[in-house]
């Protein structure tokens, strides 16, 4: 482990967390990225900026979000005490709005009039469309054609909010391809456009900036758990695609040695098959402006990720996660599509909460480990988003498994005959 007294001071001036991060972008974008870095450094210490953000967080977003003791889940698992940080209750239904609010306030300060974003599950797209509407800015959201198909409700929401959703058909038609297309737009319209990146990835200063805007999650959690339990939690758990909800929960606790942290990646069909677990199944490389762990071939060609949850369907991960993994401060696990689906149904039925499929990965991990832990062990799961958007995916999976069950039953009958 690092000998630094704090793990919270990164990145360095070039945007590196250890070996990871950086600003690997085309020259056209560099002046803008440097300007953004300067503007952000000023804004984050400006009273006006902080006050405006606080007021909007409270009255527009609905913070603070509750820390909820999942009594029935705890009872069923029969081990650790499980709390849920209810980011799903925020305006737009996920933690994504925390970041979008911060970035649009920066865009306003910088005099930008046009907003672009990439989106996978559509939650970041909806959050971006929401703040763009609130601040009267033009908004274009790039979304993979596969994701458009599986996240229709969010596509409709973005349109209602006045955003233009642009289908991306290149590559596999998922989040990575949407990000490529957003970068192409940005490099073309660099003068008037602000790119609201949705996760703790991309060129410096995005990973640090998005982390800072999301850290409200962990800051509130600390206050709330101290109030409820009189002590810090033992384990924090969050799902990780790019990793913004996990970073938001973890970062304020990085220097608290007693607090363990687990980021849960998407193992898709299994780590030996198609998956989206960049840390568990990837190697270091450079993509989308930063060096991090990527799913790629030996030739450095990026491979398509696979996860049932569109929001985790990305072949990379934020560079600070790559670093935290490297130094061993945060551990990472992976959960399959099937395990996530089971956790999804469990939370629906015994807690009356429909979680996002992304979030269901974190719940599935806790369902595995909580029974092995003592009853005074405190776990906080970041319930990063709600699952209304996932209805069609979940129903299709239920139909498919019902069909398989029928087939299996048929086989058994034959076997017996």
């Amino acid at each position, binding site marked *: 482990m690092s000998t630094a007294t704090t793990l919270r001071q990164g990145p360095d001036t070039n945007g590196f967390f250890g070996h990871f991060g950086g600003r690997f972008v085309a020259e056209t974008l560099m002046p803008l990225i440097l300007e953004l870095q300067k503007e952000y450094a000023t804004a984050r210490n400006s009273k006006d900026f902080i006050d405006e953000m606080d007021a909007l967080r409270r009255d527009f977003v609905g913070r603070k979000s509750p820390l909820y003791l999942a009594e029935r889940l705890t009872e069923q698992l029969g081990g650790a005490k499980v709390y849920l940080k209810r980011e799903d209750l925020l305006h737009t239904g996920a933690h994504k709005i925390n970041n979008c609010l911060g970035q649009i306030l920066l865009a306003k300060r910088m005099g930008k009039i046009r907003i672009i974003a990439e989106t996978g599950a559509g939650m970041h797209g909806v959050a971006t469309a929401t703040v763009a509407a609130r601040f009267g800015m033009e908004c274009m959201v790039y979304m993979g054609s596969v994701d458009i198909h599986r996240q229709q409700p969010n596509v409709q929401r973005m349109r209602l909010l006045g955003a233009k959703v642009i289908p991306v058909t290149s590559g596999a038609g998922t989040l990575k391809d949407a990000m490529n297309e957003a970068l192409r737009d940005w490099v073309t319209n660099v003068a008037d456009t602000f790119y609201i990146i949705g996760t703790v990835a991309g060129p410096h200063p995005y990973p640090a900036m998005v982390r800072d805007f999301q850290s409200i999650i962990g800051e509130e959690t600390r206050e709330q758990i101290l109030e409820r339990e009189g002590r810090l939690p033992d384990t924090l758990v969050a799902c990780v695609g790019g990793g913004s909800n996990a970073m938001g929960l973890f970062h304020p606790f990085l220097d608290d040695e007693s607090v363990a942290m687990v980021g849960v990646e998407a193992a898709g069909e299994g780590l030996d098959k198609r998956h989206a677990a960049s840390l568990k199944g990837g190697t270091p490389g450079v993509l989308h402006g930063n*060096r991090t762990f990527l799913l790629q071939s030996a*030739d*450095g*060609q*990026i491979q398509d990720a696979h996860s049932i949850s569109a929001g985790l369907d990305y072949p990379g991960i934020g560079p600070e996660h790559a670093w935290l993994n490297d130094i061993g401060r945060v551990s990472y696990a992976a959960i399959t599509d099937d395990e996530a689906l089971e956790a999804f149904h469990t939370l629906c039925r015994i807690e009356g909460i429909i979680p996002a499929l992304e979030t269901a990965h974190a719940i599935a991990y806790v369902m595995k480990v909580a029974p092995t832990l003592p009853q005074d062990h405190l776990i906080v799961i970041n319930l990063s988003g709600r699952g209304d958007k996932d209805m069609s995916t979940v129903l299709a999976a239920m139909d498919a498994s019902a069909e398989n069950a029928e087939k299996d039953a048929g086989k058994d009958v034959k076997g017996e005959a």
Partner: protein
Amino acid sequence: MSASRIDRCFEALRQQDRAALVTFVTAGYPDYQHSAEILKGLPEAGADIIELGMPFTDPMADGAPIQLASQRALAGGHNTIKTLQMVREFREHNQDTPIVLMGYYNPIYCYGVERFLHDAAASGVDGMIVVDLPPEHDNELCVPAREAGIHFIRLATPTTDAARLPGVLVNTSGFLYYVSSTGVTGSAAPTAEKVEKELARIREHTNLPVAVGFGIRTAPQAERIARFADAVVVGSALVECIANADTEAQGRDDVLSLTRELSAAVRDARTTLNVS
């Protein structure tokens, strides 16, 4: 380092008082064989310098034509080893035409920087343009490349202002590539008058030859830019010749015949100017 192929090329053209024609093609597109034949035919068709694109799955600075070319090359099994092999085979017949590899950092990073520079130099590569390595990351590849005797050619863009330009130029050698518009490859070019003004601004900071590219598609456009630029880069238009052809052989022939047209235009540019 003794005068490099790129330096010798620009010196010779300076004496002829004409601009260089720089042609970009994607390695392995439409397939290895035809791509190698195109490479071999380009100097005779009038290309003075060849930019050879190294395919990458996520070409964030490229427009649709080069994206498609890269995808098709990769689908056909092309990779970095094969790109270098193609250069090596080209050098068996040609010792004069400079080759500049153009691409993205990740495939080089995964190949291993040291190993890549060694193999590239041994294959006869003269320079590199790596789109996603700004001067802030010169230690990654730019500085080691110069030490290995390979020019690191930097892009300057309309957003590279006077404050930033010296930093962009500091480790650049061979030539400077001026990207005439903000945007991806193949997007529309601005007016020649505007580019000429921009070039004057850049030349206040450097004596390096300056190439102009992005959006130059036709012989008349090339002719106009060649009046004042040290080199004219054409890429997407050539790559599209292959996409639009009925057969691979036809695509190869179309690339070479467009190169001939462009070359004639570039060669005539300053003569026309003197007459008019």
